[in-house]
Structure formats: C-alpha cells, structure tokens
C-alpha cells in the first residue's frame, strides 16, 4: 500500500467511524469528531495493523492523533524513517 492509499484509507476509517463525512483535515477529532477513548484504541489498531505502520512508545501522543492531517504526517514521517 503506498502513502496516498494509506492517507485515503485513514480518512475513510476516521470519517466513517465518527459519522462525520465532512470532517476537515485539520479538525480536532477529539472535539469536533467526538472521538471517545474506545475510538483511540480502534485507531491505534487501525494504523498499526490495517495500515501496517508500527507505532513506537513516543508516537502515542494526542497531538499525533488529533487531526487526520497530523496522523497522515506521522505516517509519512515513519515511512521516511522506518
């Protein structure tokens, strides 16, 4: 799966899960999207296992998960330096 696919799948997963098709890339999902702590668990599993991007201890920060763009940027970074 290339980076563009990963970004698209991430967007699809987040908007479908939160029922917010119009969520903007910079909207804070924990505020606008109403993401719960259970959703954080799903999100971590999705990024690690469905997208195949292993997360390190210090990746698990709110700022990395707050918006679709932040998550995509984290995935990009990890792609560049696996």
């Amino acid at each position, binding site marked *: 799966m290339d980076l563009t696919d990963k970004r698209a799948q991430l967007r699809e997963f987040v908007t479908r899960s939160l*029922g917010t098709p119009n969520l903007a890339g910079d909207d804070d999902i924990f505020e606008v999207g109403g993401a719960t*702590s*259970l959703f954080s668990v799903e999100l971590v*599993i999705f990024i690690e296992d*469905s997208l195949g991007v292993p997360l390190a201890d210090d990746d698990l920060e709110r700022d990395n998960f707050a918006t679709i763009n932040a998550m995509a940027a984290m995935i990009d970074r990890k792609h560049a330096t696996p």
Partner: protein
Amino acid sequence: MRIQLTSEQLENRSRFGAFAEEHIAPLAAASDRNGRIEMSVVKRLARERFLGSRVAVSFGGDGLDMISYGLLHEEFGKACSSTRSLLTVHDMVCEAVERLGNENMREQWLPLLTSGERIAAFALTEPASGSDASSIATTAVLEGDEYLITGKKTWISFAQLADVFLLIARDGEHGTMAGFLVPADTDGLVVRPISDILGLRGSMLGEVELTECRVPASSRVGSPKMPAGLIVATALQLGRYSVAWGSVAIAEACVASSFRYSSRRYQFNVPIFEHQLIRAMLTEMLAETKAARLLCYEAGYLAQERKPDAVEATLIAKFFASKAAARISADAVQIHGANGVSKNYAVERHFRDARVMEIIEGSTQIQQITIPKYGLRSYSENR
C-alpha cells in the same frame, strides 16, 4: 469460514479445565463463604503461568492467543468466578504496561507480574465516579520528579491482595486521565477491605485511600501526552473480553448442572426433564449459552487478528453474555427448586456471581448507550 479450535487451543482448553477441576473447583465454595481466595491457589496460578498469560514469552508470559485466553476464562469461571476475576484484573494491568508502558517499565514490571511475584489490581472507580469514569476526582500532581497522588478508590477487586495498583488519576497539569503503577506499600496508601457482598465474594474487594502518595514520575504508564482515556480503554478492552467469557462460564456451568439435575430429579413419576416447561427453559439456556460463546469467539478472533472491529464485537459479546448469564443462572435456580437456593448446588453461587457481571466493565445500560453508536456506523445513510 471455519469455526473450529486449533489442536493447540483444544490442548489448552483441556489443560485449563483439568487445572480448574483439580485446584480451583474444590475451594470455590469456601472462597465464596470466607470472602477470599487462598494464597496457595494464587501461588499455584503463578507457577503454572496463568497470571499474565497473554504477555509475550520474552517477558515471562505465555503469549496466549486471544481464543485460548477466552477458553482460560471459561474453564476457570465454571469453577470459580472470583478466582477467574483475579486473572481479569491482574491481566488488565499487564496489558496496559505491555502495550503502553515504555521499555524500562516493561522490563521492570512484566517479569514480576507474570511470575506472580507481584499481584496487580486495577483502580478506577471512586465513591462518586462509577459509570462516568471521566468524572474521577483523584489527582496526580507533578512535583519535581515525583507525582503526588491524592484520592479515594472503591470496589477494587483484589485490593486486599494486590502488591501494586494501576491507579487511574487526573493529571494535575493536563486534566486528562492518567495511569500510575502505585505499590501497595507506598506511604499514605491505605486499603480497607469491603466484605459481605452479593457476588464474586471471594474477590477480596477493597477501598483504597491515597493521601499525598509519592511515586516516581517514571511510574506513569505511557506518555503524559497520550490521548485521553487510552490507558483506561486499553485495559478495559481486555477486561471486558474476559468478563464476557466469564459470563459464558457461568452460563455453561448452570446449563450442565440443570441437565444433570433435571434428569435425576423425579416429580410426578418422571424425571423433571420430561416436563415440557422444564425443557422450554433448558432450550433457552442452551441456545443462549451457545450464542454468547459464538459472540465471544468472534470478538476473540477479531482481537487476535488485530482488527479495529474487535472493540465493537467485545462490547456486544459482553453485553449479551452477561445478560444471558443472569437469565440462565436464574432459570438454573428454578430448575433446582429448593436445592437451587441452598448451598447443596453451585447454581446458587453462580446466580449471585452473574448479577455482578452486568455491573462491571461497563454496565448493561452503559453498553446500551455505546453499542448503538457502532450500529449507526454500519447502518447510517451517509456511510
């Protein structure tokens, strides 16, 4: 599609069942009566590596797959729900440390937890904060390189036994929920036993009061910047799965006892099994037990495959199985007649234990609030 246990899972199930029959079942009634489980049982659980069994082998665990882990809870739960519940809370702490703790914490704590040298409990609930966990008032304030923790926890399973608590507190700086490993012998920490409860009587409940308890900053599980509630949700995800299986266990034990009893007990010159109304109850009990187990298998399969859908499947499995256990155990008491309310049969204990399953790890009502949100994902028009 194939619903079939692997040979390893079948072997695990027989091993768990044999252990439970030999070492847990004989002590279950006494545990219930005395409100405790024996240290000899805890030691044996540790020796056989049943504590922290999900943890990776490199940290001393058994790296048990999720289906085997469910079978462990079914086999142990059929014998004694209180003993089974020790695995739930201890393993929730292992799960949080393994998934969210840093390398130092894993290396320090996991071998101690998997060897049973330290028993862990999970402390979230407070006198004024139950279902609404986000309202906890216990605070953790960073002072230099230590956190100062103050607050009161209650209804904590195995608080009387635990050497260490995964304690959930509000971070004084960010206001978010944070988890800390707090040793039970920390200055300022007092445990007060809670006894004489209705069900899970052997689970050594306690209230835990903390007055300016100091723990090193490194006791915090995960980064201070972690998404709010991830620590609690991660631990509860495993806890909920185990409680779903524990509910199947109660249901299965009640079904088995009801078939045996109804075949032996004669009224109106026939075994009561021959009476259609008894068969009607047995049919419901059997079907619901199998349905609950299938939901648990689905949740376990999805979790093992690391699919995000495991979260929803686990909520549904726990919701259905805990309600089923409550209904089935009530019918089991009915089928056993006066014997059903006596100590002559374990269904009386299972009936009381089943009541608890609908309250812990997200009550039935909380599941009824949460599960429809997942339904909307699947069925909403703008999907």
